[in-house]
């Protein structure tokens, strides 16, 4: 991708990250907070992917992969604990 688009995309994704983090802090319902945190990790995965492609370094994709995996497990555990007060 071109230089200017990768710069603008990284800045844009950072603004989205800040907005989503503000939503995690500000929202009053617990389920909406879990949802906002899930979206936060998806945005982080996208940011790492854009950065990896713009730098040409494949190692950031490993971090994105592990982050996607752990965010799924975390969301599942948080939702289950919120509903049933137990994880397993």
């Amino acid at each position, binding site marked *: 991708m071109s230089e200017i688009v990768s710069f603008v995309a990284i800045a844009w994704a950072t603004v*989205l990250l800040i907005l989503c983090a503000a939503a995690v802090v500000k929202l009053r319902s617990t389920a909406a907070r879990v949802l906002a945190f899930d979206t936060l990790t*998806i945005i982080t995965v996208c940011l790492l992917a854009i950065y990896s492609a713009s730098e040409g370094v494949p190692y950031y994709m490993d971090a994105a992969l592990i982050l996607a995996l752990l965010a799924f497990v975390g969301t599942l555990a948080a939702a289950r604990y*919120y509903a049933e007060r137990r994880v397993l």
Partner: protein
Amino acid sequence: MTLLSDILIVFGLLALSVGVYGIVAMPDVYLKLHATSKAALLGAMPILLATAIGGGAAIAAKAAMISVLLLLTTPIATHAITKAVALTENRDKRDL
């Protein structure tokens, strides 16, 4: 090729922005889920496709792995949150 990946990245970021706006603007958890779960996936897929096009072979392989993982796990996570909200609907009304 460069133009294609640029367009895909801008489209994906627009879809992600719609998802974040849905979190902020929707009044209800169900509506937030409805807005976000589709928009986030629709934003992540074009961005990962663009990185697969623009990067090398290693980046493309890992982007494909992340795409499959997100496609499999995002609906399950959304369903878990929806089930949690539905189960606790009568327990604490203010949490809706």
